[in-house]
């Protein structure tokens, strides 16, 4: 186990009439290099779970593990933990507070009391990794950028600490098709080429489903399913009942199958779908 929880329960406002159990007995484990999709309807506990993974929230009961340690056991380890696990929250650009793109990305490294030339290197590397031209954009005000660029700056601000684990809470909300595609290509690169462990919570499955190797499904604070994408997305009715949906292309394959065509439903990209439909013909002639 690289990251995981053990019977994690979290209650907001415990001991008051407003006490709400946001997570109930959640246990899972993921390995280094995994690309994990965290699924669940709104209010199912996804954000609460994410905040436990870098110690922003403490369990009411149960444990959170990271790299053979229990999170939150010693106070001094939290800073260290947050350098290794970076979270990009929903609509992160709404939290910009600096006058320039450069200062926004430099904020975290400066807090580590690094020399300014080291900070400079980290800022340039981070902007470079998200595909933004540092020379051109570093001096600009963040609000002068396009929606897609702002999102990338927010991600660069997290990357500036060079975390090993990246967690994204609905990273594509408000992005256009091209921005979405660019973002997922980047995540794929981080995971496949730079061996980062990635956890992503999103409802936009058309891009995500093909990239992830594991899916966790939360409903009402409970982990109701976990497994490989092929396995989870074969459970169409259960997902639908939980207020969720299949990736659109997988949904089409399910509908074809329901009509009696012998196609696989473990299909997550348009190319796979095309191939599977063409294969129907080949199978017949054999």
């Amino acid at each position, binding site marked *: 186990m690289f990251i995981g929880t053990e019977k994690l329960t979290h209650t907001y406002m415990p001991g008051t009439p407003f006490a709400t159990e946001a997570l109930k007995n959640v246990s899972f484990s993921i390995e280094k290099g995994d690309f994990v999709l965290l699924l669940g309807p709104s209010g199912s506990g996804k954000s609460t779970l994410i905040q436990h993974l870098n110690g922003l929230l403490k369990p009411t009961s149960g444990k959170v593990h990271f790299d053979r340690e229990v999170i939150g056991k010693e106070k001094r380890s939290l800073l260290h933990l947050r350098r290794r696990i970076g979270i990009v929250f929903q609509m992160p650009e709404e939290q910009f507070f600096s006058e320039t793109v450069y200062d926004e990305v430099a904020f975290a490294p400066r807090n580590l009391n690094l020399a300014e030339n080291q900070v400079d290197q980290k800022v340039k590397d981070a902007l470079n990794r998200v595909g933004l031209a540092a020379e051109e954009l570093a001096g600009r005000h963040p609000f002068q950028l396009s929606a897609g660029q702002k999102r990338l700056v927010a991600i660069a601000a997290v990357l500036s600490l060079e975390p090993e684990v990246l967690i994204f809470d609905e990273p594509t909300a*408000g992005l256009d098709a091209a921005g979405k595609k660019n973002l997922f290509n980047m995540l794929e690169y981080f995971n496949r080429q730079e061996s980062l462990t990635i956890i992503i919570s999103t409802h936009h499955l058309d891009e995500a489903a093909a990239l992830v190797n594991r899916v966790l499904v939360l409903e009402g604070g409970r982990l109701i399913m976990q497994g490989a994408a092929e396995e989870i997305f074969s459970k169409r009715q259960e997902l639908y009942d939980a207020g969720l949906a299949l990736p659109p292309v997988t949904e089409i394959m399910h509908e074809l199958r329901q*009509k009696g065509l012998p196609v696989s439903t473990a299909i997550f990209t*348009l190319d796979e779908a095309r191939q599977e439909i063409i294969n129907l013909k080949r199978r017949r002639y054999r």
Partner: protein
Amino acid sequence: MVSEASTIIEAIAVNFSYREEETSQVPALSRVNLKVFRGEHVALIGPNGSGKTTLLKLFNALLIPQTGEVLVEGISTSNESEHARIRQVCGMIFQNPDNQLVATTVEEDIAFGLENLALPSSEIRRRVDEVAGLLGLEHLLRQPPHLLSGGEKQRVAIAGVLAMEPACILMDEPTSMLDPAGRREVMSTMHNLHRDSRLALVHVTHSPEEAVHADRVVVLDHGRIVKEGPPEEVMTNLELLHHYRLQGATAVELAEMLRKDGYPLSPQLLHSRELVDSICSLEQKS
């Protein structure tokens, strides 16, 4: 056919720029001409920064064009004394439901706009109950809005606008922050409203799966209208959509790939059900 008399909104040669003083700045909108007719569902699509939200805000006088004119039921939005009336005719729903709910219970929230009209309380009660019934919110009237699901919150926001008895509802990506169940909920609410009343909808969306359900699709790019027409014409034109960094609906994209493989699929194919039926009948024939 729609007649001139049924025009609700008319944009005439509208130019708008967020920074008047900077003439070098690319304007947010230039030379936009558009009419919205009573009872019509218009989808506004375009990449980030193309001017979709700006146009929506011009339609209910949140922004005023620098040159050109926006007329709402014949009244110019430059006429400040008419703003309250214009906003009653054209209500707005924003992306994030949390940013538009103001009261402590659902019924107070729905009544908020009505109270500002100084209507008698019996009339307020009647209208709140009527729209709550229409949108299936009766059982939630005394709930605090923050305890609702995303889809429910968005329906409360729609109810608040509907209670003002508008002729048109403007929606800025109303589903992008919702889970699949919430999306289904809001989309079917929109379709029912559009079907059962003469309400016009102007709907900004990044989802091609939503745009295919409109009566007319308007494509914006760099502040200009570059294409408009029925979805059968616009949303099936993948060359055009891809050119403007947009995507087709999954069924349309998959159909285009299969056409290249020799599948004789209708060029007007828009919905996944049509694709599934076509493939099935082709398979049966062969």
